[in-house]
């Protein structure tokens, strides 16, 4: 029965059925199942499917956002029950859309997928200046900083941030993404990695902190 419910919860997340997702989360808790197990066996596998379908163009932005909403509603129930150790998993990532750019859909999707994979994500929002990135990296003792841009007029700002990180010799990995971003661009600005979509961003983040071995498919820049 438990396994069935996990599967149904995953399905509710995939379909973006928020009410069902909340209902199943509560039901599993009533059965005495640990919050961390509900997260790992119900919610996260659902989000993983969402990520893959998004990557493969089976679903698009609106469907991902609807799934994210379902996931968030369930997570809100579980979060008070999760221990700090449960929440602090793979590593800490600072995320932000760079200065001058207000586009956050892509960044939000990547942030959510990273959270779903156990990363602690500090989202600095849109229009993020280099000082804000640096402060957050230091304050949170971050492992990775992820930058997003949609505009050709703002993507150059990624270099400003990467340069400052290098100048100040801060020990943090950098990854970049967004519609106009390419691997070649990422290399030019000196970032440690580029990911084409949210699913690859998760793999890349894991590689950057040594959690996953390098696959040829991933656009990590060595």
């Amino acid at each position, binding site marked *: 029965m438990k396994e069935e419910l996990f599967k149904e919860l995953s399905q509710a997340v995939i379909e973006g059925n928020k009410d069902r997702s909340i209902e199943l989360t509560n039901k599993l808790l009533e059965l005495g199942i640990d919050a961390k197990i509900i997260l790992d066996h119900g919610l996260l596998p659902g989000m993983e499917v969402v990520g893959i379908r998004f990557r*493969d*163009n*089976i*679903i*698009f*932005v*609106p*469907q991902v*956002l*609807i799934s994210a909403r379902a996931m968030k509603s369930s997570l809100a129930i579980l979060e008070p029950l999760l221990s700090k150790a449960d929440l602090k998993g793979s590593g800490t990532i600072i995320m932000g859309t*760079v*200065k*001058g*750019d*207000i*586009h956050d*859909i892509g960044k939000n999707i990547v942030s959510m997928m990273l959270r779903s994979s156990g990363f602690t994500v500090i989202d600095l929002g*849109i*229009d993020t200046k280099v000082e804000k990135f640096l402060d957050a990296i230091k304050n949170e003792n971050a492992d990775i900083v992820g930058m997003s841009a949609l*505009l*050709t*007029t*703002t*993507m*150059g*700002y990624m*270099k*400003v941030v990467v340069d400052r990180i290098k100048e100040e010799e801060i020990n943090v990995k950098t990854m970049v993404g967004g519609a*106009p971003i*390419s691997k*070649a*661009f990422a290399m*030019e*600005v000196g970032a440690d990695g580029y990911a084409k979509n949210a699913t690859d961003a998760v793999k890349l983040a894991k590689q950057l902190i040594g959690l996953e071995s390098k696959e040829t498919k991933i656009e990590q820049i060595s």
Partner: protein
Amino acid sequence: MNKFLEALNSGKILLCDGAMGTELQKRGLPTGACPEEFNISNPEVIKNIHRDYFIAGSDIVETNSFGANRARLKLHGFEDRVKEFCFAAAHLANSVRPNGKFIAGSMGPTGELLEPLGTLSEKDAYNIFSEQAIALEQGGVDVLFIETMMAPEEATIAVKAAKENTKLPVVASMTFELGNAGLRTMWGIDVKTAAQKYTEAGADVIGANCGKGFDEMIAIIKELRPLTDKPIIAQANAGIPEWIHGMSVYTETPEVIASKAHEIINAGVNIIGGCCGTGPEHIRKIKEILDRYFESRI
């Protein structure tokens, strides 16, 4: 009849301009600065860009007002300057307009998500686009270009706001990308649905802009042409940008797109131009091709 529609109906293929954003950067717009504020602080730069495009052969230039809507300007604290920026944008283009050429008022997305996914209500979106469209009309543009749309609801609202609040013709394009599901916007809208939505909303010209370069644009126009009787617009990016010597450099040079522009013309466009990464040299090349195309038909 509106002079712009008259020109379009004459059977001539109209040549639009290339990019504004990437040209602005080349000419001193700092990274992250508000491009539309340049209409006030650096009017000569804007005029020079328009002038260069007219000299290169553009029949239409687009005003520097892509992000001059209340939602986007808010980022820079300029939300109350929509009218001022749009007026200035239209005046600057008009001040260098040769006889018989056209000024298009550029209108981009709000950058926000509509309810229920986001917080922007349909009514607010409508008001945001109306404010910009009215300001551009009062500033003296001949036509409105609603562009780089990806969400069907927002695209439709923008066209309706423009049609219902101005007397101007409306050219409406979306941005598509080729993936496993074919050509789609980030919202998953295919070319056929985009054409339907824009037609229902009352757009006079429909098409595509931005994206990943001229090859994809050829595919989009080939797909769109049999689906509609309306005139079609195509404004492709010059490929995908690379970062060389501190500048974003686009991979498709004027020489590269020269051959591809020919295919776009053959696919049946009525307005052709460029988007991000294209400059006056790209437009000059397309102009040569257009001239040859018409000579060969006479």
